[in-house]
């Protein structure tokens, strides 16, 4: 199983090399066997005697992350879809993309996706699942942006990435919470502890995080907006990722976790409401589309909504129907996308307004399309699998119970109605798609190319899918026992044995609903011209695309506005902001922790000479702020420095005094040298507010230091370590002057690196001066 998951990935890595070597053969042929073999491998498991399989490889045991692949009915269904449709899509793409395209890239992305998607459906470990999940988003991003020189491709790629990755991160939050709650990273382990999760304090967060992940991936309302734009991808991709597999990852996730949530009313409410709203809204939107693929995209969204709703219903029948529909949808929608691609390929247009009457030119495609669209519409014919699941959907919508509460009860009454309305539109756009494209008037002048039937091999993949549609329709129970039942069992957690029947009798309410849908659908379709202007008006200006565009656009402009508001390049502003933060937060911290201590103790006596020096220094310091003359200002600064040196003398620090004297002198000279050429000082003509802020901030800082200084001085908790130095300066350090001994011996590293600083400063100054001269010389 591990090989099955990673084989496409390994090929993805070697494809770029393959495509470089083999120019004569289309790369697709070389790698076609990969998904086919995987498909055959998974096919072995199918059968009524299905047993789960498991394979584990350690990866990061410290985080309980293991490549734990677990194959149950649900995984098997998906794995078959991924590899089976994958095979057909690769075959199809060989004819769809010609050799001049960058095929290496295309197949690399596609195979990365294939691996990741298999990983998603087979991983039992939530973090591994999440890893693959993100990779499906990324490969989808790359595939949508495959023709990246097109503006729309880039737009669609970014949109899909943002929305699906948002969901991915949310999913991550959800699974982390789940692991914290249950102490396990295994999904099965979590299901065993379902009670614990449901009764957890964080249940709501878990639910919302997971739902957001699933809804964004499976394009549920209102996150569906990325899917129509994802149609910029090459059609094989649309058929594969954006209808049959990737978009079902969200469905898969919900199905996978539904044993945990199935008893929770909130889960039922959210899933049913969002699912049905998605179904109804998207099927209505599909009718409005003029682009074949756009219409199919909305159709996919609405079908996903339907499956989501069925999972929400949570009854064994609904779950069964949901699983069944996953299979059915993949077959008929896959074939339809391929046919749409063929039409596009052979006529050069996907605009339904320009198409029409293609039946005569492309009879095979048209035949395939009939099966696809009618199955999608749920036309009651025994060889159309879409009808079966559609009818099961109605049945399950009618058979809801087990919940109480006014809201839920009214919801339960509303569900069948919304279901029917959504299905009517589904019927309408299905008809629209087929008749609009293949019947009606042929508009030669509108098409860039003269249409003709596609090469036979290109027709094979959709043909196989349509055969699937019919076989499932004719012999549903064959699939039921071998595959669907096992899947449904895995989701529902109990034995779900169902017989699929075509005929339920005239009095079956579900059948009556189907008839209503067909009747109303035909009516709406035939009178379609009258409705056109309504379609055009509603939903009018408001839609979620605008919200997305607005957000993406705003996020840049608002960020820009916020950032430029404070990143003005003004040092003064920066310093004021920094100082304000330091002052307020530090003062706040001291206040909160009650850290002041003004009990003055252990002071040296006050003597006149010191006070005089201190006063002179203070006056000089204030003097620097008002000095108008640069020489004066520098000299006043010198006064402060020399005053400090005198203080050092007074306080028994002769070494310091000497150093300070020398350095102060050199500094003053340097100041004078550097500022000799600079303009003189000017008076401040700033506003009062400006000055006031400066004064306030500087005094604030001074007071803060004062307060902390006094408190620190008064709070001595331990003796200084200096006595050691005095006692040992000669015995151990070999010198009498303790300061010197500390500098060169005890703390020699300080001094070494102090010299390094000077060394750096000297070279820096040299470089600054010299480099300019060299430039001048040039």
């Amino acid at each position, binding site marked *: 199983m591990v090989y099955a998951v990673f084989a496409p990935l390994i090929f993805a890595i070697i494809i770029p090399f393959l495509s470089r070597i083999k120019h004569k053969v289309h790369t697709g042929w070389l790698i076609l066997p990969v998904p086919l073999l995987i498909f055959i491998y998974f096919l072995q498991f199918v059968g009524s005697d299905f047993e789960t399989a498991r394979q584990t490889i350690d990866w990061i*045991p410290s*985080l309980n992350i293991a490549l734990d692949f677990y194959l149950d009915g649900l995984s098997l269904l998906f794995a078959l879809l991924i590899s089976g449709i994958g095979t057909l899509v690769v075959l199809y793409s060989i004819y769809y993309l010609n050799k001049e395209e960058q095929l290496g890239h295309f197949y690399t992305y596609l195979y990365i996706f294939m691996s990741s998607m298999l990983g998603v459906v087979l991983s039992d470990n939530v973090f591994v699942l999440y890893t693959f999940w993100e990779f499906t988003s990324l490969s989808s991003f790359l595939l949508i942006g495959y023709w990246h020189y097109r503006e729309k491709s880039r737009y669609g*790629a970014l949109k899909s990435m943002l929305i699906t990755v948002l969901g991915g991160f949310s999913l991550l939050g959800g699974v982390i919470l789940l692991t914290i709650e249950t102490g396990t990273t295994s999904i099965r382990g979590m299901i065993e502890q379902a009670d614990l999760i449901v009764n957890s304090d964080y249940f709501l967060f878990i639910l919302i995080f997971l739902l957001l992940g699933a809804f964004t991936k499976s394009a549920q309302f209102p996150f569906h907006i990325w899917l129509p734009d994802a149609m910029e991808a090459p059609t094989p991709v649309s058929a594969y990722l954006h209808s049959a597999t990737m978009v079902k990852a969200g469905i898969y996730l919900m199905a996978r976790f539904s044993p945990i949530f199935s008893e929770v009313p909130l889960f039922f409410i959210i899933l049913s409401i969002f699912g049905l709203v998605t179904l109804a809204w998207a099927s209505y939107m599909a009718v409005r589309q003029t682009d074949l693929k756009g219409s199919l995209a909305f159709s996919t969204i609405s079908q996903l909504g339907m499956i989501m709703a069925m999972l929400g219903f949570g009854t064994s029948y609904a779950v069964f129907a949901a699983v069944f529909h996953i299979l059915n949808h993949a077959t008929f929608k896959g074939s339809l996308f391929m046919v749409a691609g063929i039409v596009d390929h052979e006529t050069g247009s996907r605009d339904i307004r320009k198409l029409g009457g293609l039946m005569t030119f492309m009879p095979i495609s048209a035949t395939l399309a009939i099966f696809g669209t009618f199955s999608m519409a749920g036309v009651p014919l025994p060889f159309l699998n879409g009808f079966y699941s559609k009818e099961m959907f109605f049945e399950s919508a009618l058979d809801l119970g087990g919940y109480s509460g006014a809201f839920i009860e009214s919801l339960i009454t509303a569900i069948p109605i919304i279901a029917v309305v959504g299905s009517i539109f589904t019927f309408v756009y299905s008809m629209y798609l087929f008749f609009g494209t293949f019947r009606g008037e042929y508009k030669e002048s509108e098409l860039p190319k003269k249409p003709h039937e596609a090469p036979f091999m290109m027709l094979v993949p959709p043909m196989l899918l349509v055969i699937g549609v019919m076989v499932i329709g004719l012999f549903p129970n064959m699939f039921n026992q071998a595959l669907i039942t096992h899947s449904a069992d895995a989701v529902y957690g109990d034995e779900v044995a169902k017989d699929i029947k075509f005929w339920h009798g005239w009095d079956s309410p579900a059948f009556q609903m189907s008839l209503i849908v067909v009747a109303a659908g035909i009516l709406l379709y035939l009178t379609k011209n009258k409705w056109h202007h309504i379609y055009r008006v509603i939903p009018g200006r408001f839609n979620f695309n605008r919200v997305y565009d607005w957000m993406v656009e705003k996020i840049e402009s608002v960020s820009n506005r916020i*950032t430029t508001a404070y990143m003005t390049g003004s040092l003064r502003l920066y310093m004021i902001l920094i100082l304000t933060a330091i002052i307020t937060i530090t003062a706040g911290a001291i206040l909160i922790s009650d850290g002041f201590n003004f009990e003055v103790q252990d002071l040296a006596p006050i003597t006149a000479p010191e006070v005089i020096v201190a006063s002179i220094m203070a006056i000089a310091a204030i003097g620097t702020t008002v000095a108008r003359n640069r020489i004066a200002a520098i000299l006043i600064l010198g006064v402060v420095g020399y005053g400090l040196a005198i203080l050092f003398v007074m306080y028994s620090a002769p070494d310091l005094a000497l150093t300070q004297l020398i350095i102060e002198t050199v500094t003053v000279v340097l100041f004078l040298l550097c500022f000799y050429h600079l303009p003189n000082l000017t008076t401040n003509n700033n506003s009062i507010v400006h000055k006031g802020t400066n004064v306030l901030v500087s005094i604030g800082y001074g007071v803060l230091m004062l307060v902390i200084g006094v408190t*620190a001085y008064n709070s*001595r908790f331990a003796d200084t*370590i200096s006595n050691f130095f005095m006692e040992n300066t000669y015995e151990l350090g070999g010198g009498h002057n303790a300061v010197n001994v500390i500098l060169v011996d005890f703390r020699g590293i300080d001094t070494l690196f102090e010299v390094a600083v000077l060394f*750096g400063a000297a070279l820096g100054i040299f470089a600054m001066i010299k480099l300019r001269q060299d430039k001048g010389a040039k």
Partner: protein
Amino acid sequence: MNNLAILPIILPLLASVIVAFIPSKLNIVRKLSQALMVIFLIIVGYIAWLVYHNGVIVTQGGGWDAPFGISIVADYLSILLVLTTYIIATAAVFYAPHSLSDQQEKFYFYTFYFLLISGVSGAFLTGDLFNLFVFFEVLLMASYGLIVLGNGKAQLRESLKYVLVNLFSSMLFVTTIAFIYSLVGTVNMAHIAERVEAIPAEQQGIITGIGVLLFFVFAVKAAIFPLYYWLPNSYVVPNPVISALFGALLTKIGIYSIFRVYTLIFVHDTAFTHQQLFIWLAIFTMLFGVIGALSTNNVKLIVTYNIIPAIGFILMGIGLYSEDGLAGSVYYLMHDMVVKAALFFLIGALVVAAGTKDLSKMSGVIQRFPLLGWLFFLGTIVLAGVPPFSGFIGKLLLLRGALSQEYFLLTIVALLSSLLILLSMIRIFIRGFWGEKMEGMTNDNRKVHALTIPAVFLLAISIFLGVGAEYVLPYVDTISTYLLDRTEYISAVLKG
């Protein structure tokens, strides 16, 4: 008693002096620097190996027992970061000759470069608060020398602001050391920790205040909200290789220092300092950082702004102050150093390739430089924390820590800012690399290629840190346990 711990500081200092003597013999200097760095890297790797197998190595400067001398402490955390520093520096020394002009190289690039490494390693390794100040000055002096290299108008302008802000915070640092000395009469960190612990609880208020002050000293360097204003523009003006060194190393020193003092010394009131103050600051740092990254079309500035949210993530883990939180922070710190350096390298290559920094003037670069494009894409998803790469492991641990302590807002902000980080970077990919091939791309393919290669090395490490997390995680777990229990550090320094 083992003198090995001081080697990562002394060796580059020696190298810096040696290369200062022959500044204009560029060929020799280049080769010599590259050879030396590789040798140093191996030595540091060996020291790191020793630390992990034999425990903390403490070198007491001059042979004086702590707290009287200066202790150089190669513990699990510091040596790991020194190793990461050397890895990045090694990549940088191979990148430099292709990125810098001969003039810049001649004017002591390599001297400042080695001085910077010496200062950075010293700041990681020292166990003495005042000595930390000295190493800060060493690395700052080196960074001053590097940032003005080239003497451009804008460069000097931004350098001036950069120097002034740092000078201010250095002086605040000295003042804070004075306060601490007054309180506990020592400057050795382990000794301070021991003495602070002995202070009765009702008198610890002032310690909190001074701790917050010290936090701000480091926060200015680490570029934490609301103190990061100096960073973006001053990191943008110098050459990419210098930006890479700054972005990968300098801010990380600040956050490392917070790590050190707030796991060693100021742990008496974690409910306030860590779990209130740090968490809130982390939230704002993440938000304002990504907002900054989204605000500009200057590709280099985008990457520069992305330094800030990463610091927010690391601060978040310190704030959580739990096994998961600290382990996550350490992991994220390592990851971010490596991937930031790689991205700066790639952006440098992109600017050379496209001939402009302005994203709105770029397009289709990938068609000429596919390797550059794909590496950038990889770097982007690594940065955004997509599994199985390095960013994910750190993020996972951090989020697990945050959620198990019920910080929901923090979690949501962290996830959201991950998304926005991705958006800010993928914009470069979509607009700059994708699209129609632009006019005016460079013809110097070899140069772009040479600028791309060092990033390959760094990204390979990133991938290893993610996919091979199992090889690294046990060490990181050791670190977080070790940080939460201060006794090992204290006893290693004071009694070892």
